[in-house]
């Protein structure tokens, strides 16, 4: 039967690591390889970092991370109630960033390291990022 978890954090840089370890421990219940788990950590880190860096400019808000583990499928959702993204397609493009000093690689890494990425956002409506990754049957 499916397992699920929910995690609520404040949009602070020192909470990104909390999300990362919690999600990695949760994902470890499926038969992901160590390298898969590293990739999941990067993807979660990017999604939570975005909520922390972009969603609440000059203010503090909540970031909700939830996950389900169902069969071989991990689904991770990172949600904020922040400013939202005016043009999601543009934001997902490599090197696109609205903050000098950032790389514009967050969405690129989420896409590279997970099997699927959905971004649902609108100005003033917050942002929800949904990522999915399947574990492959292990050899042996």
């Amino acid at each position, binding site marked *: 039967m499916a397992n699920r978890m929910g995690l609520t954090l404040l949009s602070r*840089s*020192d909470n*990104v*690591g909390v999300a*990362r370890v919690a999600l990695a421990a949760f994902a470890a219940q499926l038969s992901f390889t160590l*390298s898969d788990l*590293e*990739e999941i*950590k*990067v993807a979660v*880190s*990017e999604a939570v*970092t975005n909520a*922390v*860096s972009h969603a609440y400019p000059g203010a503090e808000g909540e970031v909700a991370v939830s996950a389900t583990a169902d069969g071989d499928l991990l689904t991770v959702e990172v949600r904020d109630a922040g400013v939202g993204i005016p043009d999601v397609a543009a934001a997902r493009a490599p090197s696109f960033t609205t903050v000098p*000093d*950032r*790389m514009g*690689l*967050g969405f*690129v*890494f989420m896409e*590279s390291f997970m099997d699927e990425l959905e971004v649902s956002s609108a100005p003033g409506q917050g942002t929800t990022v949904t990522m999915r990754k399947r574990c492959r049957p292990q050899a042996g």
Partner: protein
Amino acid sequence: MPVHLTHQLMTNYLIIRVSGELDLHAALEFRHKVEDELARTSSKHLLLDFTALTFIDSSGLGAILGRYRTIRQLPGKMSIFGAGGTVRRILELAGISKLIPLCETERQAASC
């Protein structure tokens, strides 16, 4: 695991050894540490020891590229050594290795 930063001043270059996780939170500490030590020691060349770095994401990459810009303006040279596993893959995926040499050992890094 929070980031842990130490430094070592050699005749020709400064080494910063980074252990733990280089993410958004650690990036700030990394930036200050590197900029402070470069200024304090008047070093022009920077070696980053990633042997004990267990995690990096795009915020960590941004902090490295920012220091690369500092070094280029001096002008000086910068290289990375000891990066393995997923850390190395991410440095390569992001094209960092096209700008900053990724070496196996300190010795190699010091001579490129």
